[in-house]
């Protein structure tokens, strides 16, 4: 158990340090998410009438596609520079590496989600500071990171990785997107647990199942 967390935290701290140095991931993903929001704004005309309908959709499209961009980075540098091998050589069970990468990806996603909140607040006047919305954003980001970390490791080893990652990730992310959009709609409308409960429960179930499964199958991806 100690070895597991030692390894996971080592990987996590290393990635945080790298990101703090280059600041590459947060800036690119944040800017990209912003652009997605603007494009979808023009596509869907977010006037006050339509906002209640399209608001949640725009939010989650932005988070999903920004998320994919962020996921790409989990392993692309490691693979390109060869440092992925350094991780394989470690006397560590592979699920520890998964956990480290998962925590790093989740952190990145949460930071971007937070950065986007002012955008939704000011440009669309959406009540995103509601407690339930934040809960849903957290749970959904966890789900994205759980599944995305695993599939990012797969995609990086395929011939057409920029295409393979969305193909692998999006079908898997569907339950999260459905729950997040529906839950966000409820949250922004101020509805309580009676309406939101089922979505939150679904997200929690998703997160739990896929963190466990991804941990277990990760060795299959990073093995020799």
């Amino acid at each position: 158990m100690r070895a597991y967390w030692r390894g996971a935290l080592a990987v996590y701290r290393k990635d945080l340090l790298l990101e703090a140095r280059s600041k590459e991931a947060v800036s690119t993903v944040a800017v990209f998410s912003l652009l997605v929001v603007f494009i979808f704004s023009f596509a869907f005309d977010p006037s006050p009438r339509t906002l209640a309908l399209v608001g949640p959709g725009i939010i989650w499209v932005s988070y999903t596609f920004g998320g994919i961009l962020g996921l790409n980075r989990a392993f692309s540098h490691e693979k390109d520079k060869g440092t992925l091998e350094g991780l394989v050589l470690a006397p560590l069970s592979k699920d520890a590496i998964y956990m480290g990468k998962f925590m790093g990806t989740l952190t990145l996603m949460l930071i971007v989600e937070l950065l986007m909140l002012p955008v939704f607040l000011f440009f669309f006047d959406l009540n995103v500071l509601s407690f339930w919305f934040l809960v849903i954003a957290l749970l959904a980001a966890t789900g994205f990171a759980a599944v995305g970390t695993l599939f990012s490791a797969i995609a990086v080893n395929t011939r057409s990785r920029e295409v393979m990652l969305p193909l692998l990730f999006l079908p898997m992310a569907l339950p999260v997107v459905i729950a997040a959009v529906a839950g966000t709609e409820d949250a922004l409308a101020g509805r309580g647990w009676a309406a939101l409960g089922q979505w939150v429960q679904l997200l929690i179930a998703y997160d739990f199942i896929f963190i466990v499964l991804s941990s277990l199958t990760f060795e299959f991806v990073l093995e020799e």
Partner: protein
Amino acid sequence: MASAQQVRQRSFTGVAGLGLLVIVAILLLVDLALIFLWAPTELVLGEVQRIFYLHVPSALVGFMAFAVVAVGSVGYFWKRTAKWDRLAHSAVEVGVMFFTVALISGAIWAKPVWGTWWTWDPQLTTTFVLWVVYLVYLMVRAYVPSKDQAARYSAVIGIMGFPLVLLVYRAAELWAGIHPGTVVGPGAESDALDKDISLVFTFSLATFTLLFVYLLWQRVLVHKAEETVEELRASIK
């Protein structure tokens, strides 16, 4: 070199395969006859309802295939022997076919009945997602440099797909729940079935299942043969 026993085994496989093919072919013909000549015309929907005998069995068999994929993937993950991977791979290939039929027939049914080609009811949504997962499974195998990686990565997809299917179904169900009236679909036909319709449906399902077994078996054999050829090639060098 093949032992006498292996040669005998292969001839048995060949004969048994042929036998099964004949049986399946006959059953399919009988099935068609039943569907178009014997089954009663449904009161509400009319002739187009006969598609039901094609659509639902295809979808169910597609899901059956996925059970095989999940088993094969877990088996490969656990035992790491090629036969599990072959099983999963073949099941995906056959399953994709059945799902394609299910999706198209579902659309053909939906249009005259509900005026729309597609609905997001839980069953169709789940079928569609699984169909996409199958395609991604096959793409990953094609886009990966080594066979070993292909087997491992697709086993991961096969394993992850199982809870995904359940979660997608649940999510779509909940979503349909809060959007009543906008989501109807072929799956909504769950009322008690007329005895004769039930009979033909069951016969159809059995036939399709047998067809699935036959195709799966043959596909596994083809994969095995391909692997044998590769091994021979490698050992010649």
